C-alpha cells in the first residue's frame, strides 16, 4: 500500500476516534469552545487531506460536516441534537468509506448525496446568516473551504497539548507546502477540464508523490489486522529522548565492562554479558526507529528530472538503486539538498544533448544512476551519469583564469586533482548560465554540507564515458566510532571516519618526520604530507610538568604517531604521542561556554568514565589554516617569471657558508636525505644509486666535502631521464618572493644575489650544475656575460624550460620576459613592448612556434626581431620549415651553448643591421 495512503488511514482513524468522543462531550456542553475548535480542526484536517489525496467522496462528506461545525463555532447555528447526530452519522460514513479505501486502496464509486443534502439542510435551514449555503456549487465551496482554512489558520485555539495522533495545524500546513500544489500540477500535466467542484489537485497531484515510493506490505485482506493498527505514530522528540537514554545506557555498559575486565573472575561476568547483548540489541532497535530509507530523500527526484528533461530537451532515464538503504533521519535531512543539487548538475552539465549522444555512438537517452548501499558503517551514494564526463581542459582554464592556480602549476596537476576543482567555490564550467545550474555556486556548497556531517565527496570522470560522484556519509551522527589518541598527556577522540591511516614515525623507522623550516612534513608513498602537532593545534605545549615544559620542536619525542586525516580533498597528518583503542562513542554537544572552540565537535564519556573531547578534523584543518592555505598558495604561486615578474616560491638552503642560497622551487623535483655510505665515487665524481640510475652529485662552489658520515640532504633536479643531486648542508625554508637578481655574480654556478624574504641570498644557477653533472648535457660553458642589456622574450609552454632557460639567458646578460604561449607573446606585441630577440618553442598548445613566427613576420612591429627557435626536434625538415616561416635560427633545446651562441650572433647581427 502506498505509504502516504496508509499514513492517512492511520491518522484519520485516530482523528475519527477523537472526534467521536469529543462530539459526545460537545453535545452535552455546547458552549465548550475548545472542544468544538478541536473537532472542527480535526474534520478540517481530514477534509484537507482527502482533497490532497484525491478522495472526492470523503472530501465532500467531510466538507459538509465541517460547514455545520463552522457555523456552530461562529455562533450562526445553535447546537442541536439533530445536528450532532447528523455529524456523527457523517463520521460513520467517513469511517465506512475509509474501510473501503483500506480494502481496495481506492475510493469506491458511490454517492453520499442524501447525507450531504441533509447536512446542507441543517447548515442552511437554520442558518441566521443571509447567505444560503450550497456547497455543491463550485465557487462557494471553494470559497467556503478557503474561509474554513483561513479560520483554522488564524485561530488555532487549541489550548491543550496535541494528543498523540493529532496533527497540528503547522504540520498540516507543512504538508500542504511540501506537496506539489495545483499550480505545479497544471504545469506538468495539462488539465483540460475546467476547475470545478472538486479542486483539480485530485489524482494528478498524488501521482508524482507516489511514483518513487516503493510499495511495501501488500494490503491486508482481513479487516481485523488493518494497517492503521499496525503502526503507531510516535513523535520524533520521544524517539530522540529514547536515543539519549540508550546512549547513556551504552556508556554505562561500557563503564561496567571496563570495570569487570580488570577483575579476573567475577560473578558479574555472565549477567554483564547478557546486559551487553541486550544493550546492543536495544541500541540497534532504537537506532532503527530513527532510520529511514534513503528513498525518502529521493522522492522528489523523478519529478525534478522529468522537468529537467523538458527544460533542457534532453532524454534522461533516472535509475534508482538501493532506495531502501536506511540511514539516520538526521543525516537523511542533511543530504537531501546536496543530492538534489548533484542530480541537477548531472542532468545539466553531465549529460549531452540527444544529437550529441547519437554522434558519440551512445543511446539518445542519458542515464543518471543513483546507487545507495551500506559499506562498513557508512552509507555510500554513487551518482553516475553516462554523459560526456567532466571537461578537464575547461576546468583547467577556469581554474587558471579564476586565479586558483597558475598555468604552470596547472600543468603538473593530475586529472584527478583538476576534477576535484569543481568542489571549489566560484567555478562553473557551464558555458551559459541556465536556470538549472551554472552560476558557479553549488558544488562547493555540496561539499561543505557533506563535510559538515562528517562525510566525503569525490568525483571520478572518464572523458566521453561519464562521471561518478561518490558520497560517503556516516550511518548516524549519534554514535560514532572514534580513535582515542593522546597528546601532551591528555586524551582526545578522533572520529574514525576521517582517519585514513595511522603511521608510526620515529627516527629509526622508514617514516620520519622531517622539517622544512619549522613545518613538519612526512614522506608517505611518494608524497609529502603536511603535519600538525595536536599539542600545537590545541596550544598545549606547556601543559606538561616543569621538566617537559616548552617541548620544543627539537625536543619532541622520538616516537610519534601520525594520524593521516582527510578533510574533503585535503589530506594532512595529525601528530600525536600515543594511540589507544577505537571506541564506540556517543557524541554529546559541548556546553555553550565551550562551543566557540572549533577544534572540538563534541564530547563524550569513555568506558572508564572519563570525559573526553571529540576532535573535529574540519576544525583542526581550519585552525591550522595557514597549512591549508599555504598548500593552496603553493599551488597558486608557482615559479614562473612572467611579464609582471610575479612572486615565485624559492627553496632556501645552506651550503658552504652561512649565507643562504636559493633556487626556484619549481626546478626542484624532490628533497632527499641519503645515507652517506651510499655515495660512491666514479671517474672523479660523486655518484649515487638513485631509483635504478646513477645520479651524479654536485656541490656548490666552496662546498668543501660531501659528507662521509651521517646523512646528506640533497636537492634532486630532474629533466626527463637525467637526474642530478645537489648536496647541501641544510634546507632552510620555502619563501615566496620576487626573484630579482640585483648583483650579478662572476662565480660559476651562481647567478647572483637577490633579496629573498629580506635577506641577501645567493641564487644558484642550476644550469651550471647540470653542465657539471652531465658534460654531454651542455657542451660549452657559459660565456658572453658582459654585454649591454638586451631584452629577450622566451616563449615556451613547459615550465621546466621556462624556469631553466630564463636564468640562463638572464645570466648571459639579457633581460628576460617569459610567456607560456604564442597568444601571450602576441599580446605583449600589441602592448607595444619591444624585444631584441625572441626565443620560441615550436611545439606548444594552441598556436605553435611556426605559426607564431609567421604572425610575427607579417607585422611591422616585431617584423625585424630575430627569432630563435628552440625545439626538442632537430630534424633537417624542421630546420628548413623554421627558416621558411621566418625563424632566424633553429637550436635544439638542450644545446645550451648553441642557444647562447645563436643569441649572441643574432642579436649582434640584428643590432648591426638596425
Amino acid at each position, binding site marked *: 500500500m502506498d505509504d502516504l495512503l496508509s499514513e492517512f488511514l492511520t491518522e484519520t482513524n485516530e482523528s475519527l476516534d477523537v472526534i467521536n468522543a469529543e462530539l459526545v462531550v460537545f453535545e452535552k456542553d455546547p458552549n465548550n469552545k475548545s472542544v468544538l475548535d478541536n473537532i472542527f480542526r480535526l474534520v478540517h484536517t481530514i477534509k484537507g487531506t482527502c482533497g490532497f489525496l484525491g478522495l472526492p467522496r470523503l472530501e465532500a462528506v467531510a466538507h459538509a460536516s465541517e460547514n455545520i461545525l463552522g457555523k456552530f463555532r461562529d455562533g450562526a447555528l445553535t447546537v442541536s441534537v439533530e445536528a450532532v447526530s447528523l455529524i456523527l452519522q457523517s463520521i460513520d460514513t467517513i469511517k465506512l468509506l475509509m474501510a473501503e479505501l483500506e480494502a481496495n486502496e481506492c475510493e469506491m464509486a458511490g454517492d453520499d448525496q442524501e447525507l450531504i443534502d441533509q447536512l446542507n439542510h441543517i447548515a442552511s435551514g437554520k442558518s441566521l446568516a443571509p447567505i444560503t449555503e450550497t456547497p455543491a456549487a463550485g465557487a462557494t465551496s471553494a470559497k467556503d473551504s478557503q474561509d474554513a482554512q483561513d479560520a483554522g489558520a488564524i485561530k488555532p485555539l487549541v489550548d491543550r497539548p496535541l494528543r498523540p495522533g493529532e496533527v497540528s495545524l503547522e504540520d498540516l500546513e507543512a504538508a500542504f507546502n511540501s506537496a506539489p500544489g495545483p499550480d505545479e500540477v497544471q504545469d506538468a500535466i495539462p488539465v483540460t477540464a475546467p476547475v470545478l467542484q472538486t479542486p483539480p489537485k485530485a489524482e494528478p497531484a498524488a501521482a508524482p508523490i507516489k511514483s518513487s515510493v516503493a510499495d511495501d506490505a501488500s494490503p491486508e485482506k482481513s479487516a481485523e489486522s488493518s494497517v492503521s493498527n499496525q503502526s503507531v505514530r510516535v513523535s520524533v522528540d520521544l524517539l530522540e529522548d529514547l536515543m539519549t537514554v540508550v546512549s547513556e545506557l551504552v556508556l554505562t555498559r561500557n563503564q561496567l565492562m571496563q570495570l569487570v575486565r580488570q577483575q579476573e573472575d567475577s560473578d558479574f561476568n555472565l549477567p554483564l554479558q547478557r546486559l551487553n547483548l541486550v544493550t546492543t540489541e536495544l541500541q540497534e532497535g532504537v537506532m532503527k526507529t530513527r532510520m529511514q530509507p534513503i528513498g525518502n530523500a529521493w522522492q522528489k527526484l523523478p519529478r525534478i528530472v522529468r522537468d529537467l528533461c523538458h527544460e533542457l530537451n534532453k532524454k534522461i532515464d533516472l535509475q534508482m538503486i538501493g532506495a531502501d538503504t536506511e540511514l539516520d533521519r538526521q543525516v537523511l535531512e542533511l543530504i537531501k539538498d546536496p543530492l538534489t543539487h548533484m542530480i541537477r548538475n548531472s542532468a545539466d552539465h553531465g549529460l549531452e544533448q540527444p544529437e550529441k549522444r547519437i554522434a558519440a555512438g551512445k543511446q539518445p537517452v542519458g542515464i543518471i544512476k543513483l546507487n545507495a548501499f551500506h559499506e562498513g558503517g557508512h552509507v555510500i551514494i554513487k551518482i553516475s551519469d553516462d554523459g560526456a564526463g567532466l571537461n578537464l581542459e575547461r576546468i583547467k582554464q577556469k581554474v587558471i583564469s579564476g586565479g586558483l592556480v597558475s598555468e604552470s602549476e596547472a600543468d603538473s596537476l593530475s586529472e584527478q586533482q583538476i576534477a576535484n576543482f569543481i568542489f571549489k567555490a566560484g567555478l562553473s564550467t557551464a558555458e551559459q548560465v541556465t536556470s538549472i545550474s551554472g552560476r558557479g555556486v553549488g558544488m562547493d556548497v555540496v561539499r561543505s554540507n557533506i563535510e559538515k556531517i562528517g562525510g566525503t565527496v569525490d568525483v571520478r570522470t572518464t572523458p566521453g564515458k561519464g562521471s561518478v560522484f561518490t558520497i560517503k556519509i556516516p550511518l548516524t551522527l549519534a554514535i560514532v566510532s572514534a580513535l582515542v589518541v593522546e597528546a601532551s598527556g591528555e586524551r582526545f577522540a578522533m572520529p574514525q571516519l576521517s582517519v585514513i591511516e595511522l603511521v608510526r614515525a620515529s627516527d629509526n623507522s622508514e617514516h620520519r618526520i622531517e622539517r622544512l623550516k619549522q613545518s613538519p612534513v612526512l614522506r608517505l608513498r611518494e608524497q609529502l604530507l603536511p603535519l600538525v602537532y595536536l599539542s600545537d593545534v590545541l596550544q598545549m605545549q606547556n601543559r606538561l610538568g616543569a621538566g617537559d615544559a616548552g617541548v620544543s620542536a627539537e625536543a619532541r619525542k622520538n616516537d610519534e604517531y601520525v594520524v593521516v586525516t582527510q578533510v574533503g580533498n585535503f589530506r594532512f597528518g595529525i601528530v600525536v604521542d600515543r594511540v589507544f583503542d577505537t571506541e564506540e562513542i556517543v557524541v554529546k554537544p559541548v*556546553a*555553550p*561556554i565551550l562551543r566557540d572552540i572549533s*577544534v572540538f565537535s563534541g564530547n563524550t564519556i569513555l568506558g572508564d568514565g572519563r570525559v573526553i573531547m571529540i576532535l573535529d578534523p574540519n576544525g583542526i584543518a581550519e585552525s591550522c589554516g595557514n597549512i591549508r592555505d599555504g598548500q593552496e598558495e603553493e599551488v597558486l604561486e608557482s615559479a614562473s617569471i612572467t611579464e609582471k615578474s610575479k612572486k615565485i616560491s624559492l627553496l632556501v638552503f645552506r651550503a658552504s657558508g652561512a649565507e643562504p642560497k636559493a633556487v626556484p622551487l619549481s626546478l626542484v623535483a624532490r628533497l632527499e636525505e641519503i645515507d652517506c655510505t651510499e655515495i660512491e665515487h666514479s671517474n672523479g665524481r660523486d655518484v649515487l644509486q638513485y631509483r635504478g640510475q646513477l645520479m651524479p652529485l654536485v656541490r656548490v662552489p666552496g662546498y668543501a666535502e660531501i659528507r662521509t658520515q651521517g646523512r646528506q640532504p640533497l636537492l634532486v633536479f630532474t629533466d626527463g631521464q637525467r637526474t642530478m643531486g645537489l648536496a647541501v648542508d641544510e634546507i632552510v625554508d620555502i619563501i615566496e618572493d620576487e626573484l630579482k637578481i640585483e648583483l650579478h655574480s662572476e662565480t660559476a654556478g651562481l647567478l647572483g644575489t637577490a633579496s629573498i624574504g629580506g635577506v641577501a641570498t645567493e641564487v644558484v644557477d642550476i644550469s651550471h650544475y647540470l653542465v657539471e653533472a652531465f658534460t654531454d648535457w651542455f657542451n660549452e660553458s657559459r660565456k658572453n656575460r658582459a654585454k649591454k642589456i638586451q631584452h629577450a622574450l622566451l616563449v615556451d609552454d613547459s615550465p621546466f624550460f621556462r624556469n631553466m632557460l630564463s636564468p640562463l639567458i638572464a645570466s648571459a646578460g639579457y633581460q628576460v620576459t617569459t610567456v607560456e604561449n604564442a597568444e601571450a607573446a602576441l599580446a605583449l606585441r600589441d602592448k607595444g613592448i619591444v624585444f631584441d630577440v625572441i626565443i620560441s618553442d615550436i611545439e606548444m598548445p594552441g598556436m605553435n612556434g611556426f605559426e607564431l613566427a609567421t604572425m610575427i613576420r607579417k607585422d611591422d612591429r616585431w617584423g625585424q626581431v630575430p627569432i630563435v627557435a628552440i625545439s626538442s626536434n632537430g630534424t633537417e625538415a624542421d630546420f628548413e620549415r623554421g627558416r621558411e616561416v621566418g625563424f632566424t635560427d633553429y637550436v635544439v633545446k638542450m644545446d645550451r651553448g648553441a642557444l647562447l651562441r645563436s643569441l649572441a650572433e643574432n642579436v649582434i647581427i640584428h643590432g648591426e643591421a638596425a
Partner: protein
Amino acid sequence: MSMRTDNNENVSGLTSDAMNADYVSLVVADQLFGIPVLNVHDVFSPKNLAYVPMAPLEVAGVLNLRGRIVTAIDLRHRLGYPPRSAGDTKMAVVIEHHGEPYSLLIDSVGEVLSLSESLFERNPINLDQRWRDFSEGVYRLENQLMVVLQLSKIINTSNGAKAA
C-alpha cells in the same frame, strides 16, 4: 536596586519563612560565599577532570557526573584568586544554567544557612569591580561576611552574549 527586587522574587519561593532565605555556604580562598540552596543540584568531590584545551581560562575542564558531562568552572580563577596549591582540598557544587549543568570548583562547602533579610546588604560601593559583577549582595554574619553569588554572571563569561 531592581536586582535586589529580582532576588526577592527568586528567593521568596525558596524560603521556609517569608523573611528568611536559604543558602549553601561555600569557601573559596577563605572567603565565604553563598548560593541559593535550590540552585544547588549536587555537591561532590571532583575527580578525573578532563582538561579542555583552548577553553576560556576559568574552565577547569569537563567531568562525568553520573553520566552527565559537566563543565567545571574554577571559582578561584573566576574571582581573581591565585590557583590552589597541590595540597588544597577541592569540592564542586553543581548548578544548572540554561539547562546546562556546570560545576563550580571551590575549596570547601559549608552548611546550609537560613538567613534573615535584615542581615542582607547591597554591595558596598568600594567593592572590587570584578566582584561587583558577581556579587548580588552581602550578608552580615556574626563572624564574617557572606557574598551572595550571581550564578548567571559567573557562568556567562566571555561568550555571555551567546549563551543568553
